[in-house]
């Protein structure tokens, strides 16, 4: 992949585990020998706001942030967030969406309607759209909080990352007591990608 740079945007709602996902992905890219940069958001936005982590890897990386129209893949933990960041996707890019709906305040209060068909509208525009129910898969694996690692599995499939490399990174970053559930969640996500793609 000499000279080529991969740009991954991981978007969601504060508290959904985007930070862990970007850190796992970045570690795998490091282990595979790439130059890697990751940009994260800490502080106030984490309190239930719209959050984004950016991972870039390749032979040589300068900017830690991705430009509009520059993302090869958008990994969205929530439907509305996929739509919010869609202008960052490359024309031939892929968007993987967890079919989860977290209402923002204007929707909760009934001021605005949640555009429930948003994933379908994205699919109409973006050829490579994948909508999955990562939350339900995570529940089956033992904890809904592992939905982010189900998404890691899908992403690893899309990136063509070796399974054992990703599992190694998960082992290094997930607390021991949650490890089994997370490894299972990763496997399920990875299998799902192979089945759909």
């Amino acid at each position, binding site marked *: 992949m000499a000279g080529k740079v991969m740009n991954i945007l991981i978007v969601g709602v504060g508290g959904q585990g985007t930070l862990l996902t970007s850190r796992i992905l970045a570690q795998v890219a490091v282990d595979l020998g790439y130059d890697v940069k990751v*940009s994260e958001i800490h*502080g106030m936005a984490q309190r239930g*706001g*719209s959050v984004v982590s950016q991972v870039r890897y390749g032979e040589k990386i300068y900017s830690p942030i991705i*430009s509009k129209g520059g993302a090869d893949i958008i990994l969205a933990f929530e439907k509305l967030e996929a739509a919010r960041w869609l202008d960052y996707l490359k*024309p031939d890019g892929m968007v993987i969406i967890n079919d989860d709906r*977290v209402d923002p305040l204007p929707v909760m209060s009934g001021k*605005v309607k949640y555009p429930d068909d948003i994933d379908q509208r994205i699919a109409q525009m973006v050829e490579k759209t994948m909508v999955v129910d990562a939350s339900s898969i995570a529940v089956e694996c033992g904890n809904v909080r592992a939905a982010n690692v189900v998404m890691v599995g899908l992403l690893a499939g899309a990136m063509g990352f070796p399974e054992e490399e990703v599992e190694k990174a998960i082992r290094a970053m997930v607390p021991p007591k949650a490890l089994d559930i997370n490894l299972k969640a990763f496997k399920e996500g990875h299998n799902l990608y192979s089945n759909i793609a």
Partner: protein
Amino acid sequence: MKRLMIGNDAIARGAYEAGVTVATAYPGTPSTEIVSTLAHYPGVYGEWAPNEKVALEVGAGASIGGARTLVAMKHVGVNVAADPLYTFVYTGVNGGMVIVSADDPGMHSSQNEQDNRGYGRFAKLPVIEPADSQEALDFTRLAFDISEEFDTPVMLRITTRLAHSQTLVEEGEPKQAKLKEYKKDAPKYVMLPGFARGRHVAVEKRLEGLKEYSNKTDLNQIEWGDRRLGVITSGVCYQYVREVMPDISVLKLGMVNPLPDKLIREFAQGVERLVVVEELEPVIEEQVKSWGIAVEGKEHFTLLGEYSPEYLAERLGGVAQAQGYGLDKEIPPRPPLMCPGCPHRGVFHTLKRMRLKVMGDIGCYTLGALSPLDGMDACVCMGASIGMAMGMEKAEGVDPSKIVAVIGDSTFVHSGITPLIDVVYNQGTSTVIILDNSTTAMTGHQDHPATGLNIMKEPAPKLDLEALIRAIGVNHVRVVDPLQLDELRSALEEELQRREPSVIIARRPCALLVKPPTDKQMVIEDDLCTGCKLCIRIGCTGIYFIEDEKLAAINPTTCVSCEVCAQVCTFDAIKIVEG
């Protein structure tokens, strides 16, 4: 082996490798991780100071005592520490001292976006600026040598994008920490006018030496390329420039004060067109212009917010960006909001219902200003709420029984105590609410003097807030549970009527630090719900409104059964179900 590190962790590593043995800070995004990480390295004494001024003073004492010392704070924290900073520049150091200023262009988590490179010129100290985590480590290490060589504190200036971006770092061998011997030297360390005059001479002489150093150091480097365009830049902007214009000539500055005048002249003469790319203030541009060099800058670029590669490409040309997708329909915004079960929520709901004038402060609870709580009238800086409530009372335009100050526990200890003394001394009648969640929540749950734990989470003497407040001379101090809205409201009504100062401590741990109860849950009885939306106005993700059915509903995955919505409901439609 290289590994990924956020800039802040790389600074901590660099300080450890430089032999730092004392590290002090008050938490503040985007600086917090520096000292929390550094404190865990072997042989390092770390502390959370009550505020940045104290942190810097402890640092100054440690430096004079011979230790290499690091002090870290967010950009506005430097304002708090500015008093000792300016004069510590006069005394100079013994053990090397580095002050990290973490600026926040774009205000990801701050109340302003001041450019602290300005402190370099104003306070007359060298300022170093890294462009990635490796440089953060290397420059921090080097900054201690500069500090000792030139007998000055050094400012390491970073921005949010550097602090919280992970890039690859090769760790070095830690230097053996060695204390310098302390020798009494009053003319150097006692800043009486007579001595300070001598030190000002030393400061100016030192700056001349630093200017020479800036011209020679590898911190500043010319990368010759296509000479039709030459860009002077520093920090993360360097990465953006290289991303979109890989072939142009660049003068990359790692030392941004004092600037390398000779190097800049050499660079200017070598390129056809000279442009400065710097976020926020034209600090470099104005100095270069003052030397009579033709240079472009802020006529192309904004003074506001963060830059990005695409912004530079748009303003300067360069690698064209692909057109992305756009969705026609507007996407509803998703502002940050208080967590479900947050003890602050009911307080702001009550303040709004009572139509009080609320002088607010800095912390998670500043979110109480946002819709639908709308519970704040003003918020300026750490600790300002109490003094502002006093001032509003003295203006005599507002009924004093309608004015409250609202401040968090960590913020109160930071800088709320002195204004409370003012209220007592000058006979104000303010009611102060201390939102005591027993942590510094916004920055990631750091301890402080009133939590009973130190930076290492070891037991520490616990500041007794009630005793402190009584000792100041406030006769009416009471503690309420902020999740009991009736109790809170009656306490407020009583204290606001008093013609003397009073403090209400609303005490309940941060909802993120307690496990939600598993033995109860909230349920809405649909036949009792009138769809009035009163419960929706508390702005909680645990409860939402079904527009088609005109009914409120509980979201069981986010709700933590704090019962605030049940207390707000006037129709008794929200019930607690045990088991």
